[in-house]
């Protein structure tokens, strides 16, 4: 590890984007100052690591060698930590993690459910190495996969190994990576290219970002191996410009790898030349589509092109091109190093290995998790995610971003793998999981995702450009009380039309949020249309703003919080809403603990 023999203790400070935003750099400064004050700077090393994953609880400090996990650390805690933890050898109890529902605090990182149930391959170095240090990456067996491939394997053997491992593309489609490489190798047209798709655009998803920021060399290693396998001499990493830290760290990683002879000419003296260039995207969601991405690199407008020909035959600049996403490449090094059998032993029959998810929404442990394929959704949300805050009821999980589907409560036992998710109308996507509780309106949620797709549609094909807008209009009608008999069937028919006739994967998948919510929450649509009522009390036009007398506990919370003095209440009296003053801001609904307003 990164341990230097002179240090007796390491503080691993998370320097992921989330923790930095909540102040980890200030914590670092405070700790450093404190250590210096007590002349301990040579005893304790502070390491800024990539994203630890447990973003909800940042800033995070993990203290080694014992693995004590401190969360929500603030600069003012620095004296306490140094005094207690470093000098006196006592754990700082108040900074330990506590599950919402549990009584006791958990001192060791491994004992925390969030970490304990994960299996790290892609995120193997998370929280353990300095993201900007190639030495630390190498110390953790980095580039051993590349070395093994170049030293002892032919390109065909590399492809065979990847095929055998069962690795499937983590970008959403799940196409077997080995087959893609094999197809690309087949064409004797040069130069060839291998591209890493780092244009992560799904709302709420940050898996690839964390890998690029936290362990950039794992991406470079995977790309170099794929380049060797398919016969490419040049790689590109397409990163969205909204990830400046990723670009900076990848660039440093590329420069360092070149210095070490791990990129550039004659890599490891094996006569293989491969180099990588970063291409920052300009912020179009559609550029995550592989062919649009290649157009973008070529300097053209990012729009999906026709297939066939496939990119493996004629991709970037009409040359055979292999494209995988960040997570796929991060899997490659370990597969080559430890062998396909090892990798294939993890996961399910059809989906091997692990998958990284960005867990967000109504869940306690918001963050980045990596679990073996086949883990159930339930385990993901409740064991790792720590369940729903405030004891609310789990309603649905949206998996796969704006193109994915909503999985309802009764299917929470579904295994997370490509086939199972497809069967329930969702998709793996790139790995965003948005957890929704009972306060979420599914019609509104569907509208949100369709809105995103309307905004991000490139405009090329009619069904996606015009059809999604029509769906959006219809959903808005329903949410605002203009729903009519037949609207559900209309949405289904149009949705299926868009799925069937859209040009690219984005359009084909865009109606999924609507289709899957209709499938599982049809009653909610019907309530909106027929009863003009939003059961989740989200769509303001469909809320009566009337107090349900039987449920009202006469506490007055609604009255006290109403910003427009629209609630009449006196002690021991049922509250009453004066609709002439009510602005439908929903403050009362959010404050009422008894669900007494409809």
């Amino acid at each position, binding site marked *: 590890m990164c341990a230097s023999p002179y240090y007796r203790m390491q503080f691993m400070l998370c320097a992921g984007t989330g923790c930095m935003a909540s102040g980890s750099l200030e914590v670092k400064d405070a700790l450093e100052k404190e250590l210096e004050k007590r002349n301990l700077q040579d005893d304790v090393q502070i390491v800024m690591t990539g994203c630890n994953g447990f973003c909800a609880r940042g800033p995070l400090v993990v203290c080694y060698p014992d693995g004590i996990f401190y969360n929500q650390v603030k600069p003012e805690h620095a004296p306490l930590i140094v005094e207690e933890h470093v000098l006196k050898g006592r754990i700082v109890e108040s900074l330990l993690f506590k599950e919402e529902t549990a009584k006791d605090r958990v001192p060791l990182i491994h004992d925390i459910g969030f970490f304990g149930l994960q299996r790290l391959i892609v995120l193997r170095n998370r929280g353990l190495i300095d993201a900007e240090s190639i030495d630390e990456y190498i110390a953790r067996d980095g580039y051993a996969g590349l070395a093994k491939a170049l030293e002892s394997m032919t390109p065909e053997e590399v492809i065979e190994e990847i095929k055998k491992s069962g690795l499937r593309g983590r970008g959403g489609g799940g196409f077997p990576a080995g087959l893609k490489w094999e197809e690309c190798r087949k064409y004797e047209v040069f130069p060839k290219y291998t591209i890493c798709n780092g244009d992560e655009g799904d709302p709420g998803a940050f898996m690839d970002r964390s890998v690029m920021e936290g362990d950039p060399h794992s991406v470079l290693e995977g790309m170099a191996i794929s380049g060797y396998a398919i016969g490419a001499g040049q790689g590109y990493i397409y990163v969205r410009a909204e990830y400046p830290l990723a670009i900076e760290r990848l660039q440093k990683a590329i420069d360092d790898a070149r210095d070490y002879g791990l990129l550039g000419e004659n890599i490891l003296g094996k006569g293989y030349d491969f180099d990588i260039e970063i291409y920052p995207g300009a912020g179009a969601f559609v550029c995550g589509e592989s062919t649009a991405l290649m157009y973008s690199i070529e300097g053209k407008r990012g729009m999906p092109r026709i297939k066939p020909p496939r990119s493996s035959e004629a991709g970037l600049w009409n040359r055979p091109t292999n494209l995988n996403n960040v997570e796929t490449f991060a899997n490659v090094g370990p597969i080559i190093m430890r062998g396909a059998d090892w990798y294939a032993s993890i996961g399910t029959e059809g989906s091997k290995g692990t998958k990284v998810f960005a867990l967000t929404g109504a869940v306690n442990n918001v963050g980045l998790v990596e679990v073996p394929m086949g883990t159930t959704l339930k385990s993901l949300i409740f064991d790792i995610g720590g369940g729903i805050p405030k004891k609310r009821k789990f309603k649905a999980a949206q998996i796969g971003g704006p193109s994915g589907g909503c999985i309802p409560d009764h299917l929470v036992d579904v295994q997370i793998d490509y086939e199972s998710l497809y069967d329930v109308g969702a998709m793996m996507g790139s790995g965003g999981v948005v957890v929704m509780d009972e306060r979420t309106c599914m019609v509104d949620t569907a509208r949100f995702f369709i809105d995103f797709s309307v905004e991000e549609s490139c*405009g090329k094909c009619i069904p996606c450009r015009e059809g999604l807008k029509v769906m959006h209009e219809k959903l808005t009608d329903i949410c605002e009380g203009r729903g009519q008999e037949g609207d559900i069937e209309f949405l289904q028919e149009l949705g299926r039309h868009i799925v069937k006739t859209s040009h690219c994967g984005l359009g084909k998948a865009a109606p999924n949020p609507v289709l899957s919510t209709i499938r599982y929450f049809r009653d909610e649509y019907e309530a909106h249309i027929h009863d003009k009522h939003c059961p989740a009390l989200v769509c303001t036009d469909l809320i009566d703003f009337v107090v349900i007398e039987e449920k009202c506990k006469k506490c007055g919370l609604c009255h006290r919080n109403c910003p427009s003095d629209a609630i009449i209440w006196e002690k021991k009296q049922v509250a009453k809403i004066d609709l002439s003053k009510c602005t439908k801001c929903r403050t009362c609904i959010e404050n009422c603990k008894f669900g007494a307003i409809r």
Partner: protein
Amino acid sequence: MVTLTIDGVEVTVERGTSILDAAQQAGIRIPTLCNDKRLVPYGACRLCMVEVTARGRTRTLPACFNPARDGMEVATQTPALNEGRRIQLSLLLRSHPLLCPSCDACGDCRLQDLVHEYEVPELPFTQESRYFHVDNDSKFIRFNMNLCIKCGMCMRICDEVQGVNEISFIHRGLECEVSTDFGRPLDCEFCGQCAQVCPVGAISSKWLVGTGRDFELKKTETTCSFCSLGCTLTLGEKNKKVVWVSSPGDSHNDGNLCVKGRYGWPYVYSEERLTKPKIKRAGTLEEVDWNEALSFVGQRFNEIKAAHGPGSLAALGSERLTNEEAYVFNRFVRTVLETPHLDHAGGYGYRGLVDGLKPIFGYPASTNGLTEIKKANVVLLLGADLTESHPVAKNEVISAWKRMESTVIVIDSMKTRLTRAPGLYLLSQPGTEHLLAFAMLKEIIDQELFDRKALDLKADGFDELVASLKDYSPDNVGRITGVDADLIREAAKTFAEAPSAVILVTDGMNRMAQNVVCAQAAANLALVTGHLGRPSSGVFVLGEKANAQGAIDMGLAPDMLPGFKSISDEDARKKIEELWESPLPEGEGMNAADIIKKAADGEIRGLFVVGENPLETYPDRELVEKALSKLDFLVVQDIFSSSTAGKAHAVLPVSSFAEKVGTFTSAERLVQRLKPAFRIPGPKTDLEIFQALSVVMGKSMTYAGPETIMDEIAGLIDVYQGISYSRLAEGPLHWPCVDDSDPGKSILYESSFPTGKAALAAAPAVVEPATDGLPMSLIPGVLKFHSGSFTEWSSSMMDVSPEGIAEMNLKDMKAIGVGDGDTVKITGSSGLWIRTKVKESVRALEGSVIVPQHFSAIKLNSLTSWEEPLVRVRVEKA
């Protein structure tokens, strides 16, 4: 080949053919809104979705880009598919305002047609109320993005076919619209292809707005009269005025037109058109009626002939005459005027090119069909700035570059638009182009990059060629031209090793000697490397004007008779004398240069100028002016009162190309019909005038009409034997076409040469270009907006390119202290000078100034001369 079934019809197509094209071959139409055969399939409209069953699985796929595969079963018209199409169309209509009654595209709108065909009964979706600004700021083109259906055809044709990339989509999704960068007005080739390809009315030609809709137009298919490519034109006429110009998609030019072809026509209605004959009385030209004018002309010619002999008369024809007119003019000059002095100015441009080819190959013409260029792996442009001179041929090169990733080799004295393509650029001073081409040839021979055995079977003269190339090593030529010798070597290797390669040469203004050697170099290169007699190979020589080839074929030259026969060929003379019922004048006549010189000397006293404006377009303006002033009698036959006509004693107004019957022979030997779209009262056709004059002069030539003239031509000229108007009604024919069943040959020399074997031409001695002690080279520039000098009468072309501006390299401009828009004085070796505005241009190499040749105001020909094709000048701030 693959065989598939489409709607129950079995069809066998080439591998790689799309399902859509396969269906078309089977006679089945699949609806589309974003497909054009010129463009890479795009897949945006999703109307071409078909049900494909293969290996037991049925899928719904777009037909436009999915390839046909063996054993596929395709259904194109199931109820589900048609319902899908109805939804697609309904979705389009929600953001396409239904202003059809006021739309110029009404009746010529693919969306309208499909909405009708698929019986979209009502509008199921709420109309989108978005408003885009209607952009009228550009010349010729109007953008109304409210109507745009985002098929992308405009921007694709601009990129893939024109290679211009002026417009593209901006914004995203529903906000998406077609625009230039930051919405500035167009600054492009103004070819109007975007407007032509627009399936709806989103992009339209400005002047056509409000002037007529498709169903109101009477359409006439004819041939463009500008350059020698002979694009097929459809003229749409309403109220006896042409208001719409397009080209049919199945034409040999693939429906492509350039700016002149599409927008250059307003000259036919110019107010300044001559409508009445004029004769000079008491020093001024007065309008008279035709009888008076014709008898005056006939009488004066007869008088001069009687007084000074027929040798005192001379005639200058034009490359704009139809074949029939050129042929009859030839007969008129040689048997009515009875003078051997007949030439045309093309004799100093295009003539040089064909003179270079004929002794080597046998025919004085291009060897292959122009549409083959797009499949060539290497395109060598030898002094061919196609973007400006032959824009539609440039499209072929763009296609080769973009679709085939072909290499473009440019040998030129300036940068052209095509030097933006990835390729090899051998750029040097004017007059050295042939040196570079011969240096490539030497390298190919020295490195044995060719098949000696195959060459020996085909051609003689190899040893002489090798001996003549002694001084043409890349190093030596590189030293003279300043071009990197390794670049010459690379070009040679690339050209020789290409699976297929074409060479294009255009005629430089008045560069006869230069044209001959360039054509020889090109022909030698093609012969030696074997890039000949096969598809997508050979040498293309492209003349400036519409019937450059026809003028050669019809023998409009002092040393030639129709059918490339020498004037001293006794058999040919005899045959023609019988046909024309008259003896031919003895011996070879004077060429254009000598005619002008002898006129200035007073030896030529009567001159008949047909369709030319020597004062503006012939070299040595001073001499021409002197010659014309000195003549006893000058007759000018033209559609406008040109500056030459101003000096005439009689001016005869003629009909334009759009008003007459005839044929043109294009640069690829394609014989095509001209058909009249209308006729303005007053002028006569050239043909009518020649015949009427012959009657007046007492030696009447009687022809029932152009059709019978073509029959006579077919009887006389071997390669035209199988050509007749009845066959041309079916479509154009390539010569040689030797009998009624011969489909014509677009590729020459597939198996043999007319003379048995080809004859390689020896290279001329290497001469370093002289500088005359003057620092700069003057390059007469060609502009795509102009043709000769007569586009000055085309209001549209003058609108987009109103004045001639010289182009110079920034470094040269700084050296003489001028900036954009300043005026410079350009002085030639004789001390004569011209003044013109100047602008910075990346096209001009250091040490050269490009001056457009089309503008009478500049008087460029003050600096040029008959003898010295290359002009050295001094440029100063004026």
